[in-house]
């Protein structure tokens, strides 16, 4: 290599080439996606007037819960993407009624597709498991609801405290016998646990998009 500038151009353009090809073109193609209605207006080709727009953005509590989800590193073991029917068994496992598409994620500041399924996919967990009580028990100790799970218990998101004036808190967990708090004590979720459960329950893939229709609604 006698020619250093030529070499430098070479190493510059190889990476620039892949950056432009994958990232920039991807950005151009996906960056302009907007919310839309479940079906497209046949005449205008745009959203149907008066129909709700999807995807919706999450409520404040769920947004806070997403912070907890991220800071606990849940994305290390859980994906949030459903592959199309016929690829893997995402559909058969009931992880989502349709595949997720790029438009599903446009309102998220941080996209958590994930790359490992040490635990199940969570994109539609809010419809699959709609009871907040279940989520609290599961987070407090996964063995209560899912024996044999290797998910770590998140007991530190719950507070074991004395029952005040013999009136248990309405939020107290209904723990099975072997997990009960000591006599006169109760286990209540902290604010972070409530936010996390609100986030999990907000993960729902229960709407169609023009490019990805729910199979059940189309039947």
């Amino acid at each position: 290599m006698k020619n250093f500038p030529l070499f430098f151009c070479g190493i510059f353009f190889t990476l620039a080439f892949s950056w432009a090809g994958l990232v920039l073109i991807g950005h151009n193609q996906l960056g302009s996606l907007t919310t839309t209605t479940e079906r497209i207006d046949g005449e205008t080709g745009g959203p149907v007037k008066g129909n709700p727009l999807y995807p919706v953005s999450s409520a404040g509590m769920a947004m806070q819960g997403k912070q907890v989800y991220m800071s606990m590193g849940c994305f290390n073991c859980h994906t949030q993407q459903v592959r199309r029917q016929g690829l893997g068994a995402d559909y058969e496992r009931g992880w989502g009624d349709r595949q997720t598409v790029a438009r599903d994620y446009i309102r998220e500041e941080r996209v958590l597709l994930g790359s490992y399924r040490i635990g199940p996919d969570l994109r539609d967990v809010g419809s699959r498991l709609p009871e907040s009580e279940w989520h609290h028990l599961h987070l407090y100790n996964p063995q209560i609801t899912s024996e044999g799970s290797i998910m770590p218990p998140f007991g530190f998101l719950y507070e074991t405290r004395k029952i005040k004036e013999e009136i248990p808190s309405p939020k107290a967990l209904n723990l099975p016998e072997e997990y009960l708090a000591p006599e006169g004590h109760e286990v209540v979720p902290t604010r972070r646990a409530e936010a996390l459960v609100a986030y999990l329950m907000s993960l729902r893939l229960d709407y169609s998009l023009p490019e990805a229709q729910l199979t059940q609604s189309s039947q």
Partner: protein
Amino acid sequence: MSEQSLQSTPTSDIDCSIKWPALHFLVWAVIWLLVGSVLSLISYVKLTNPAFLSSWEWLTYGRVHPAAINAMVYGWSCNAAFAVALWIMARLCRAGIRGAGLLLTAGLFWNIAVAVGIGGIIYGDMIAVEFLEMPAYVTPLMVLSYLAISVWGIISFRYRRCEQIYVSQFYILAAFFWFPWLYTVAQIMIVFAPARGVVQSIVSAWYSHNLMWLWIAPIGLAAAYYLIPKVLGRPIYQYKLAVTGFWTLALFSSWAGMRHLAGGPVPAWVISTSIVAGIFVIIPVVIIALNCHVTAFDNFDGVLRNPVLRFVVFGMVSFTLAGLIGSITVLRTVNEVIQFTYFTAGQSQLFSYAFFSMVMFGSIYFLIPRLLGREWPSARLINWHFRACSTGIVIAIAALMMGGLIQGWQMNALDESGAPVFEFLKVVGYTGPWLKIKLAGEILLLAGHLAFAVNFSRLLAGLLISEIADKIPDWIGPTFNKSREVS
């Protein structure tokens, strides 16, 4: 180039000029290696027994696991890479490092940034993106200190006194240029001015793949291309191909990262492009295999007997395997099974540990005696290090790959009515034994690293004592000086 210019050993002045900065990087590398392997061990104990240490928030699996990976990548791998790459660069250019103090300071700042970043992950400030978990407040320091380190490689090259340019110099120069670009683009498009929706995921896949193939791999390859002919005293077989290997690696692997998004919510052309590029990566992999393996296996006895080459050749065989497995798993039918399973974790360990870390161990064993003019205190510990780490990593990767294949097959298996054959928790249960085997591998790795660290600290202690003894004037410590003369 070859033999000739490799053989005419650069003066010890060059080694001397880089002695302290390189030693500084290596001290940090060893510290991070130990931190990383302990954290990684904890995370695998947690996978086999979720109740282990579960009452501490900062030790939850979701934090320990990324902390371990960051310690291994930005702590151990980067520090080892800095030391080895700058040293090889200085030697091949036959130009010493002039501002050793500045380089040392830059290295200190890099390690402060890594320490704060890993602390941030443990504390809960993690950014939820693979390989970019370290919080945003360390990013500027990471970038600046990286630039202040890599610039010395470029300065060495600018003031080179060598006639020809060897392929190791290609790899090192390119890697020093690629990493800061990859890192800043990824940080800007993901953290500081997040791109919309899944464009983030495309950037993230582009970054994490290229982090391995355009930063980690080039340094490992540069070291192998330097050490194999140097130690064996014979030229690289078919050296002319090596430059083609370099350019094809740069061209194809930089496009191959999107395979991780297969089936995901990204445009199909993105994935198809990466599949094609991923298959073409086989070209540089075969070229590099031809260059290194034919040279090394020509004198296989020499390789087995040499503590340096044992590590390096083990690493290069792993590189070939990782490349071939990577090109096979990119195919859609295979990818469908292994996607999201432990198999991919095994692949990344095959690359970042069995290839890169092993090559780095070999390089460090070669570099230190030349840098310090001292031999390693214990040949037996080097032996134990190799045995523990090579056995440990083979066990660990085999467990992840076998367990991952079974996991993937069970996840996808459907019965005649189209329902999944195995419940999810059943699939999790079947991975249990494989995770235990993996854990055994991790324990062996830690044992190997301890042997390495003990040997290294004994060497440092010896060095410190002699340095201090040098500084003691005769009238204070005649006994000291006397004992030095004897030794």
